[in-house]
């Protein structure tokens, strides 16, 4: 399938009007120029903000992978995914403080607690995501394609209200347990342990996911189902179970992201998931939806763009415009390069 698709891709790209491409390149160049100017104006700030952006990007990557996994297998934008991530943050706070009594100043005792919370939170979110699929999306397998999409929006709103009923309308705060001491400080560029811990949690999870999808039998089943459900069923793959499993994996990634986010930012609110979910979805589209390394790349890029925008001193639009910038990127990508940075061209793109 990939080989078939790539041949017309090439010719299409050659036939494209070059004006569009030129404008795109100009926009990217302008962004790069703005960054370089900032680099010269305030180099230490630039590197510090970049390091923060990498951390944010890691959290986004975990969420974006959930979107990309589900889209890859069902071609469904799972709007509820961001809210599952929000629930993950709430699970983290509940498990860690109420079950394990996590609080500030426990030293290295936090390591097993955070690890146990991570496992529990991933499990809970995975189960919730699989349940959502079972209740809301599975009955609509044969319906027109917009039907599950609309349902997903409904589910997203329901989950937000679950969070609202559970934790109330205000910010819930998590204990600030990650140490803020510096890993290194180089020419005024500080890198705190809390950021390193987030990266240190993210990367094993990502590697685990890659191993799962590329090396295991279940991962093979997932890839086969994503390519062609009917053919996969003929080959003896239990398609429904594979899809459930995919939702479970996506949900547990969201749970891991929820843990990183809630312990790193230390606040969660019921409506944060949707916004962050949209940003993560943008990341998935930027990298090429359905493409796992693409989602990570896109997430890191989006995380960097966001923190650069909010943190750099020289003529950046600032945090008021973050949403607009992210959505502009989303729209521009969808219009000019719907296959994303690493993705294959899909018929959707046109």
């Amino acid at each position, binding site marked *: 399938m990939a080989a078939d698709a790539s041949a*017309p891709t090439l010719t*299409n790209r050659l036939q494209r009007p070059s004006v569009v491409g030129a404008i795109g390149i100009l926009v990217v160049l302008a962004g790069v120029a703005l960054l370089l100017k900032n680099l010269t104006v305030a180099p230490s700030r630039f590197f510090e903000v970049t390091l923060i952006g990498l951390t944010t990007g890691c959290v986004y990557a975990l969420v974006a992978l959930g979107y990309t996994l589900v889209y890859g297998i069902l*071609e*469904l*934008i799972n709007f509820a995914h961001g809210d599952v991530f929000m629930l993950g943050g709430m699970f983290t706070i509940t498990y860690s403080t109420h079950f394990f009594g996590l609080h500030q100043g426990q030293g290295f005792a936090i390591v097993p607690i955070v690890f146990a919370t991570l496992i529990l939170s991933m499990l809970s979110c995975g189960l919730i995501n699989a349940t959502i699929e079972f209740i*809301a999306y599975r*009955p*609509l397998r*044969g*319906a*027109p*394609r*917009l*039907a*599950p*999409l*609309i*349902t997903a*929006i*409904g*589910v*997203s*709103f*329901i989950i*937000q*209200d*679950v969070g*609202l*009923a559970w934790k109330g*309308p205000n910010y819930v705060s998590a204990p600030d347990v990650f140490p803020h001491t510096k890993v290194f400080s180089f020419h005024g560029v500080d890198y705190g342990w809390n950021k390193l811990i987030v990266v240190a949690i993210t990367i094993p999870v990502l590697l685990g996911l890659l191993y799962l999808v590329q090396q295991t039998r279940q991962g093979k089943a997932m890839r086969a189902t994503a390519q062609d459900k009917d053919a996969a069923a003929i080959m003896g793959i239990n398609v429904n179970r594979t899809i459930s499993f995919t939702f479970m994996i996506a949900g547990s990634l969201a749970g891991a992201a929820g843990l990183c986010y809630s312990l790193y930012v230390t606040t969660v609110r019921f409506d944060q998931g*949707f916004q962050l979910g*949209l940003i993560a*979805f943008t990341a998935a*589209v930027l990298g090429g939806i359905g493409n796992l390394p693409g989602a990570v790349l896109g997430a890191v890029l989006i995380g960097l763009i966001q923190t650069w925008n909010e943190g750099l001193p020289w003529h950046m*639009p600032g945090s*008021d*415009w973050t*949403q*607009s910038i992210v*959505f*502009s990127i*989303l*729209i521009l990508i*969808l*219009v000019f390069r*719907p296959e994303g940075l690493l993705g294959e061209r899909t*018929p*959707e*793109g*046109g």
Partner: protein
Amino acid sequence: MTETLADPPEVVGIRNVLRARWKALPFWYRVGISIGLELLIAILLFLLDHSLGYAFATVAALYWVHRLPRLPWRLAGQLVIITIFLVFGVTSLAAALAIAFAVFWIPERYRTWALPLVAVALAVLYPFYQPKMFTIPVFGVWPDIATGVVMLVFIMMAVGLNIVVGYAGLLDLGYVAFYAMGAYTAAWFSSLQFANKNFHFGAVGITPDLPGIHVTIWLLLPLAGVVTALAGIIIGLPTLRLRGDYLAIVTLGFGEILPQIARNGDNFFGTGFNLTNGPNGITPLDSLGFGNRISDATGGFLPANYLQCCNAKVLGHQIQSTDVFFWTAIVLLLFTVFCSLRLQYSRLGRAWIAIREDETAAAAMGVPLMRTKTWAYATGAFFGGVAGAYYASFKSATFPGDFFFNISVFILCMVILGGMGNIWGVIVGAGFLAYLDREGLANTGAWVNANIHVGHWHPNLDVPLYASGIYGLIILVVMLFRPEGLIPSKRVAAEMHEGVHDEPLYDVAHGAEGA
């Protein structure tokens, strides 16, 4: 199902088995069991809340009367029910039932125009009889006139969105952007926002030397529509090439970007240019009205200024400014519905339906995809803009906080609940949901808190707080159990149940782009 001489088809599944057993019972057994069960439910509901028990009994009685053979039994039954309510002194309910029965007695072939006519008449007269109406169990009193205006505005938007989603099948998750465009267009041209300009044209209720641009609302409504339609075209041209869910995401993006521009638009990137007055919004807006000259020429029928309206007392009802806003909204809605109905079976409307059902086949049959979709987008946007402008004038304000993504989903929920593609369904769904949003949820919440209790435990729910989740639940339940909506069009129902050919061929969109 036709009976055949062969073995009767095997009945499978617990529901079908039960249904078959039920059908096998003698007729009077079934009637007796049904009425007994209904009485039991009515008594249980009566214990929960008296009025609810009565309401259930009434509905059950109406059902049985409806099942009676036509004349004279049904008429007699209807007269009995009306008489009972008259005796108990619930005159308004008796009158409502009488009208409903009368409508049912209208012969089938006159109903197509008689039903809308009765509905419009009832709506127009609503301010006169609203204070005298009976209380609905659980939902409480009938919506007041201000709620009525909001309901009409949202019905307009839903009818507009129905053109995009229902007719053309393009999922628009950013409809709120068009609403915002309309509202801000009205605000710019009828407020103090641009105080360094001084331009007056037909605005009422202000002194001529007031700074700012002040244009009469009757020009602003079409202007807002046209500006919004243009915005729709500008947004649509690059994005409508995308299909399905990608388009939904792009529209969602626009729906998020425009409110953010409105929120940050008081000082664009530090240039000091104030376009939208930021989070404070633009307020107040000029009053609506026809001005003294037209008002005098029509003998005071068209009010000079809505906010100073009216001294007249008609049918024992002191006419207030909200009533006039209400009637104007009805006129606007009628215009919207008229356009929507005329468009539905026009050449363009048929092209929309063709695209919805199978884009590839439509393109092959020579339907210009881009142009048709753009028209759908622009038409939907037009009505969204008009509704937004009118709503802003009614509230005399517009705030960026009014244009959250929730509103887009809220309007989408109206279209889905009512039935995509069917304008009557959309009207009913939108009216009901807008009512829920303004009054219904608060009323039902109060009822639940007052009446439901387990032992000594009373719920203390702030139901309106959970509004968006309730809409989400409505969307979910409707999509799972009745995806064609409450009052569907036959066509959409067929598509939903049989599925449509939705697998796009590889390169069709490119062909359309080149064409």
